């Protein structure tokens, strides 16, 4: 991201947010959030409920006015622009379709507001084009109450896209759909976004949704953006222990930084010293966690020679076990580093291992697969 100093040269759909904050009395819902977005980015705002992601979206849409900070869109500032003038449109969580209008009237709503007025025939053809975009052009006369959840979702999308916004805001749009439909809609949203080439800002608390759809994910916690990066980087190099635990499954071993050699950081734990790749700048003696993804771990039979290939090992017994067809998830109670979740593909050496509860196993991993993340706790922060 290049720093932008001159608004004049900025592309149409370039969104830039600087130091945006929103306080309700003493409560800071959003504090000092900054990011910029190249046109055509699928940007997910990810966080647990109450992290401020919806408030941030409302400020972008113009439903809430910021306590501090600026929002720039393209060559102009829109911080104080009323919602109805902003060239951004929103897909609401529960769609907010107008119950007294049919599908075509709903979709054409934004076009009917424009002055000078748009000719009726043009409205009609643009409504039809928008409905084609979401494959609903066969149902223009239906009322929203006569549509399924998925269809309502599509109408909401068409309605928000009909006026060609430069950025589309989506407020947990898939949360009201059932699981299967949600997966279909994820793929469709993603392809829609790449065809249109505009930015989507997608608010969600579902990390799977964010990981699978977004080009970039900003993880929010207590009103702040903790980490803003690509899904892969977010998964592979979480900024701290909270992010590491929030995204996917993670095993942690608590310890302190003992030293740094090359690109590996040594962590002193109760179970001995381990190494891993640090995901943030760390000081010697700092409280950290050694973080291990279940799929980065390997399982060996206790008498297997293969386990010598792993740089680090911990022996233990299988505590719980679940079979998923192509892979196996199991929890191993180790003697040294506590309970560890392990995910292994069935194609490999799994048949040699005794998965029965109480079966003895060895958990092994390489230092380059371990991450060292700073420990985050909310009490220490406030």
């Amino acid at each position, binding site marked *: 991201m290049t720093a932008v100093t001159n608004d004049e040269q900025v592309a149409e759909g370039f969104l830039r947010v600087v130091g945006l904050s929103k306080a309700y009395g003493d409560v800071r819902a959003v504090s000092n959030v900054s990011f910029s977005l190249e046109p055509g980015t699928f940007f997910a705002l990810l966080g647990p409920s109450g992290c401020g992601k919806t408030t941030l979206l409302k400020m972008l*849409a113009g439903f809430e006015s910021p306590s501090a900070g600026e929002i720039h869109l393209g060559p102009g500032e829109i911080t104080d622009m009323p919602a109805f003038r902003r060239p951004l449109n929103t897909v609401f969580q529960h769609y907010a379709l107008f119950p007294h209008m049919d599908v075509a009237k709903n979709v054409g709503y934004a076009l009917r*507001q424009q002055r000078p007025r748009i000719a009726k025939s043009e409205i009609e053809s643009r409504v039809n084009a928008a409905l084609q975009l979401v494959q609903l052009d066969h149902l223009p006369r239906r009322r929203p109450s006569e549509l399924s959840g998925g269809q309502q979702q599509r109408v909401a999308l068409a309605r928000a896209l009909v006026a060609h916004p430069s950025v589309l805001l989506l407020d947990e749009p898939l949360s009201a759909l059932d699981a299967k439909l949600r997966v279909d809609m994820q793929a469709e949203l993603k392809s829609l976004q790449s065809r249109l080439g505009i930015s989507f800002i997608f608010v969600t608390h579902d990390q799977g949704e964010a990981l699978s759809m977004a080009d970039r994910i900003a993880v929010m916690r207590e009103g702040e953006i903790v980490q803003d990066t690509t899904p892969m980087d977010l998964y592979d190099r979480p900024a701290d222990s909270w992010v590491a635990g929030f995204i996917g499954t993670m095993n942690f071993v608590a310890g302190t930084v003992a030293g740094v050699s090359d690109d590996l950081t040594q962590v002193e734990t109760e179970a001995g010293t381990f190494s891993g790749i640090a995901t943030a700048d760390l000081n010697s003696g700092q409280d950290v966690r050694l973080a291990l993804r279940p799929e980065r771990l390997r399982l060996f039979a206790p008498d297997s020679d293969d386990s010598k290939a792993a740089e680090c090992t911990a022996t233990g017994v299988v505590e719980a076990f679940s079979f998923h067809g192509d892979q196996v998830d199991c929890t191993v109670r180790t003697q040294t580093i506590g309970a560890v979740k392990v995910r292994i593909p069935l194609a490999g050496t799994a048949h040699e291992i005794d998965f029965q509860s109480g079966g003895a196993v060895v958990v092994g991993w390489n230092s380059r697969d371990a991450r060292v993340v700073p420990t985050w706790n909310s009490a220490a922060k406030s």
Partner: protein
Amino acid sequence: MTSTARRGRSSAVAAGPAVLWFLLFMIAPLVVLFVVSVGVRGPGGGYLPGFTLANYGELETRLVPILNTVRFSLIGTAVTLVVAYPLAYYLAMKAGRMRMVLLALIIVPFWTSMLIRTYAWIFLLGNNGIPEVLSTLGLADDLRLLNTPFAIVIGIVYNYLPLMLLPIYVSLERIDPSLRAASKDLGADRLATFRQVTLPLSAPGVLSGCLLVFIPVMGEYLIPVLLGGGRSYFLGNALADLFLQSRNWPLGAALAGSFILLMSFVVVGYSRLTRRLAGPLPTEGVL
């Protein structure tokens, strides 16, 4: 088969008391009313059996109270709507935590008798009331408010305000705030949002309120007597006179019957209209 039959029988038994009630208190009085309306007036007043439609022919002599009533009911309903809508809008959208307190303040006065409340307006509108205050302030001299059509409209608005306010309030309160947000998001300013979203979605409440005010005002008796000074003669007053003063029961019954018929057309028209509107109907099951 048998179970359906049994269920049918048991539901008929369950509906029995309701049907009986309906026959006794709804149908029977209407039958009596009709029988009286085709009878003849006794020599000393009252009713003698007979069959004649003359009473219905004579209705045109009562055209003045009929037109008076319809006119005042329409004007009164319209003015009540104009007063109640902004109030209901404020309560539903802006009042926040004060909402319940304000609603109570509007409703509580109506726990006292309508007669007493209307008497209070006699004092307010009378020569020692508002006209006195205005002339002391030098704003108007010799203003006459009591016993005018204006006083009747005031009486109607004051007495029927909650009946208009509550259905409108309910329908406004039920509108999902995100619909207004969506409207603004799509480029409509506040006025355009009100016109295209809020107003149409509150239409069922407006219709219910108008009906709830219009029907009882059509049968109003007290307000024209107390505030109109008997100058504006309503149907209710005409009926009271026919039954109690001139004791022309058959003509009274014919007038009352036609009135009931007229009102049922209004109600049917109302339900036709509401069925065409989307959204919740606050009076569903009431009317």
